[in-house]
């Protein structure tokens, strides 16, 4: 299979859907000639013109609101939000308007809209350009949330998102834009709510999202060398969440660690761990552990920033303890 970057995968998904459906348009800052600062959209304005690849002023609440209204009236906007951190600026339009319109109108109006943004630290961009804020969005009913973990997922989930009749938020890992993965030439879609078992295993389940999937896979390698068999699962969408697949795995392995790059407290790992505890309690041999980013604003200094995000070594260390039955109440190795 040919290999393309995550950037190219997103670009292809958009181009294919824009060709298929002329109501699809892209709106955001420097999306046209510049093709975004990450160059993800390069070439699209040349094919689709400035009427469908729309450069905006720096007014995130404004163009998000415009997208909501456009979606309600027959268009399918793909909003480009340059950094995930800017989601704080558009929360009202996203959560009070887009998420609730279908329900508040008794099903009469709908908002088929995609919000493309990103997550991920360790780019030395400091506290306002490094956050992973998907937990906030996942808390609001009416929104769907996709977290692609490779170019393959990025393309398939984006195409599904564009065809979905609801507001969908896709967080891409900004450190992964130049990473390649096998992506078929033929068209494919990845359904929402279907987790992906990245690696099978029997001793412990590592549930990991987005940027943390590779961390979990590396941890699984480390563990394999020690004779510990780790299963790695990527939920791919956290709303809807493929609870059944996660529970099934944990019932098999009896142990789990949930790994996600959002802040740990009141975050994604809490929800997933809670569901496992509720629904696989009697199968668990040890507490479900959570490993999120530290509960600190992301520091600029490389010496500090790298400490805030879970690492393969940290995951392996916790897994080792869990499997050995050495994890007592309250003991836990943090992220680093």
């Amino acid at each position: 299979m040919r290999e393309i970057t995550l950037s190219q995968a997103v670009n292809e998904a958009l181009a294919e859907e824009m060709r298929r459906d002329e109501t699809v348009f892209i709106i955001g800052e420097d999306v046209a000639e510049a093709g975004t600062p990450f160059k993800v959209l390069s070439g699209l304005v040349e094919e689709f013109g400035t009427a469908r690849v729309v450069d905006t002023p720096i007014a995130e609440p404004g163009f998000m609101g415009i997208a909501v209204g456009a979606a309600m009236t027959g268009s399918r906007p793909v909003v480009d939000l340059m950094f995930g951190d800017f989601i704080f600026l558009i929360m009202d339009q996203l959560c009070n308007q887009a998420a609730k319109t279908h329900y508040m109108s008794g099903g009469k109006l709908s908002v088929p809209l995609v919000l493309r943004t990103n997550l991920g630290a360790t780019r030395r961009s400091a506290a306002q350009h490094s956050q992973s804020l998907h937990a906030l969005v996942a808390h609001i009913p009416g929104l769907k949330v996709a977290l692609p973990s490779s170019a393959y997922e990025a393309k398939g989930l984006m195409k599904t998102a564009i065809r979905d009749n609801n507001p969908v938020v896709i967080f891409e890992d900004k450190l992964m834009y130049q990473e390649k993965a096998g992506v078929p030439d033929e068209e494919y879609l990845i359904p929402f709510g279907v987790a992906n078992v990245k690696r099978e295993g029997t001793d412990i389940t590592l549930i990991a999202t987005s940027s943390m999937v590779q961390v979990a896979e590396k941890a699984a390698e480390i563990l394999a060398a020690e004779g510990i068999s780790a299963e790695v699962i990527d939920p791919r969408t956290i709303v809807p969440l493929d609870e059944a697949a996660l529970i099934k795995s944990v019932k098999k392995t009896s142990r789990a660690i949930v790994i996600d790059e959002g802040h740990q407290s009141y975050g994604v790992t809490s929800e997933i761990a809670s569901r496992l505890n509720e629904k696989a309690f009697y199968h668990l041999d040890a507490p479900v552990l959570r490993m999120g980013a530290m509960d600190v604003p992301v520091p600029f200094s490389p010496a500090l920033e790298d400490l805030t995000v879970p690492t393969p070594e940290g995951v392996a260390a916790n897994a080792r303890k869990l499997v050995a039955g050495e994890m007592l109440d309250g003991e836990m190795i943090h992220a680093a």
Partner: protein
Amino acid sequence: MSTSKTKNSAQASAKHNAEDFLRMYRQMVRIRTFEDNANQLYLSAKMPGLTHMYSGEEAVAVGICEALRVTDKITSTHRGHGHCVAKGAEFKEMFCELLGKEEGYCRGKGGSMHIADQSNGNLGANAIVGGSMGIATGAAFTAKLLGKDDVTVCFFGDGATAQGLMYEVMNMAALWNLPIIYACENNGYSEYTKTAEIAAGSITGRAEAFGIEAHTVDGQDVLAVNSLTEQLVERCRKGEGPFFMELMTYRYHGHHVGDINREYYRSKDEEKDWRENKDPITQFARHLTSEGIATEEELEAMQAEIKADATAAVEYALKAKYPDASEVDMHVYAA
């Protein structure tokens, strides 16, 4: 870009015929009657929650919506019953919505603050002040993108002009020549505060600074409002939008139905003056009779008929069924 100007009804009447006039009158009376019933439902504790009365402002919604087609869009506000009626909604579904019944326009899930007859191009009342400004601008964006000549009117209050979102979307509407009319219903108050205390400078001047042509119009004069809107809508259809209208008007009731003792922020005399001397329905009735378009008796008969309609709709709604419990998690996601 012109400076603000005030239009009056004289310029307008020529091209309207008696039928149009009587429909406008009817729509204004329907709004007033709807609100009187809604207020009564609140006072008699039959309505859940609170609601905001449009009484006094009827000429704004009617004058504007009568200049629109069904496929034209509007966005509405927390004070949204008037816009809803004016864009073509029926009493029965509206009262059902106000009472949280299944047959309401939103199946009872929206209530007063989210009411809308969606099939007539009403994109919804909105409980976030200023919250619909992006939505309205987006509807205009769709029209342009898909090559339709539909126009969108964004209704909002003087208080909403304080929200930054307005300036963000006006900038884009101006840059992209979107077919939208921003209609500021300046009723002199936002909640319990006078407009002068919350708005520095000039409201129309703010639109003009973005290169948007802005007009001030007497919001109690339905023909003036209608005539100006017709012109601006026509120009929007030709790609000359966006436009901004400031409509000078007044709400008769408190901010919401529960806002009874309000002398600390506005005087009874002021209220009396507007009701007695600037009522949009009385003024228009006078015009209709003096021009020989209708007799007083005809107008009274129309009022009585509307009143009876409303009473019947209220009775229907009071007896109508609530949505089934199974509806609670329906419509969170569209299929």
